[in-house]
């Protein structure tokens, strides 16, 4: 394992405790968005793992992107990605965010999220169940840790 700098180790220890997520709807149908909210509320309650929805991308470790990217949202998605501090993980939630799903051959759809920003974890489903979303975030944590240890990227 590569020797980590103190600052990187500190960042990693922070990530291990609590992941803060920012939710961005880039042109979806709300189905995935309400499942994200359902994952945050008592039945699934991801807050017990320290996963918390924040109001600004500048506070976030993880970007949850739902929906296919529409033309007016293109610039906004890129800007939000740039505003999220490193190290960050982008999760594409749902069929539309992963592959554009049913919204193909439209004049106002620029395709899935990975056409615009790099995506680390894809969660398929229309919409994915809250359990699937939680599983995706857990995979994102593992990926972030590997990133920090210098094994990837």
């Amino acid at each position, binding site marked *: 394992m590569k020797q980590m700098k103190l600052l990187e180790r500190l960042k990693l220890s922070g990530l291990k405790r609590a992941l803060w997520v920012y939710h*961005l709807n880039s042109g979806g149908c709300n*189905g995935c968005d309400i499942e994200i*909210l*359902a994952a945050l*509320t*008592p039945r699934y309650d991801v807050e017990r793992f320290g996963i918390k929805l924040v109001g600004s991308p500048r506070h976030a470790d993880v970007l949850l992107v739902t929906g296919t990217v*529409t033309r007016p949202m293109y610039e906004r998605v890129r800007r939000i990605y740039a505003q999220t501090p490193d190290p960050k993980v982008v999760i594409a939630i749902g069929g539309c965010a992963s592959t554009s799903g049913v919204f193909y051959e439209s*004049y*106002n759809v620029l395709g899935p999220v990975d056409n615009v920003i790099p995506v680390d974890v894809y969660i398929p489903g229309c*919409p994915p169940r809250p359990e699937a979303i939680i599983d995706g975030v857990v995979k994102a944590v593992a990926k972030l840790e590997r990133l920090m240890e210098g094994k990837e990227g």
Partner: protein
Amino acid sequence: MREKVKPEEKTEELTKACPTCFEVPIGPIHPALKEGIRFTFWIEGERIRKVDIRPGFMHRGIEFMGTKRNLIQVLYLAERICGICSISHPLAIVQAVEQAAGIEVPPRAQYIRVIIGELERIHSHLLWAGVAAHELGFDTLLHYVWKVREPVLDILEDLTGNRIDYAIPIYGGVRRDVPPEKYPKLKDALRYYRSLVDDFVNFFLRDPSIEARTRGVGVLTSEEADSLCAVGPTARASGLRKDVRQDWPYFAYPDLEVKALTPEDMGLEVRGDVYDRIVVRLLEVVQSIELIEQCLEEMPEGEITAFPKVAALLAHLKKAEGEGVGRHEAPRGEVIHYIRLEAGEEAPAVWKVKAPTYSNLMPWYPMFRDQEIADIPIVAASIDPCICCMERVQIVCDGKAETLLKDELLRLSWAKTERVASRVTRQVSPGRGG
């Protein structure tokens, strides 16, 4: 020469009209908004003097995509217009297509459609109640409401196979039956919600701080609601007894006798504020429970679809020619689908969708007038906006969005008539008035 008005010029014009105002843009991405829409508020002190709304961020071109696919694919596309009212759009489009193609629907299927539609109303109104509580700063209530919303999603999953996007209606009937062995579970869930009604009244209507934050906030008078064509709970909270299920009954609703509910049904005076919108939605949850119970009692036996084989249905739809209009009372108000079918074509020739939020956008203007900045989230949420439903047309020119005024649109329309006319026949000449 007709001139285009650019959005920036319009902004300047409004700023001139109120020189002491600050301009505050909110959106398209903002924690108070769940979806992309941009508000520009002109604020004087703490008060909103003017508001401008710029939609168009969620426009995906669904109607355009629909005219390139066969009707069964269009049904699934209609479902994905909106994930929250994910049964409302299919229920409206099946009515339109059944009208256009002359398909008779078995009565049992009509009852199943009503049951799923009303279950969705319960889930959607509870969802809204949670979001409204969150906008007011009552996160405890948000978590409570979303916890009690889970059983209705379990029931929907049990009946249809999915928590959201149920894919239940199909042209000529429904895809899955509700067998009698599932009744007890459904009745248990309804009993559970009935037992919660008192709690909801206590938490939402008798709570002094909720009352203080919502009484007299975001007022929409009944005249304004009428003239601005508000629909759904927004209109009913302003005292208009307006409900598609009552005015133009469809499916099994004629047997069930639905009545449009206003705050008067709870013995309250109609004031048309946010509080009244909470009252109406609570009443409607109770109404939906009663409707489902009635459906379960009166449900007839028999077939669930007129076309058990999809291939036969597609062949029938391919031969059909005509046009149809489908209307459904979605949780947010009236949704209308218009469809035109051509014989020999698998795809619809025209498909037009009008979602309830489209009608409820204009009432935002009087609602926001002279409100405080802090009331923006709850007033915006009070119509239960569903932006992705509403985004039907957007004009993009050289990569830049522009606002087109009526005369510009007319000019475009004339030019198109000219183009089309020269192709079709030389005898048609476009009108050139004004």
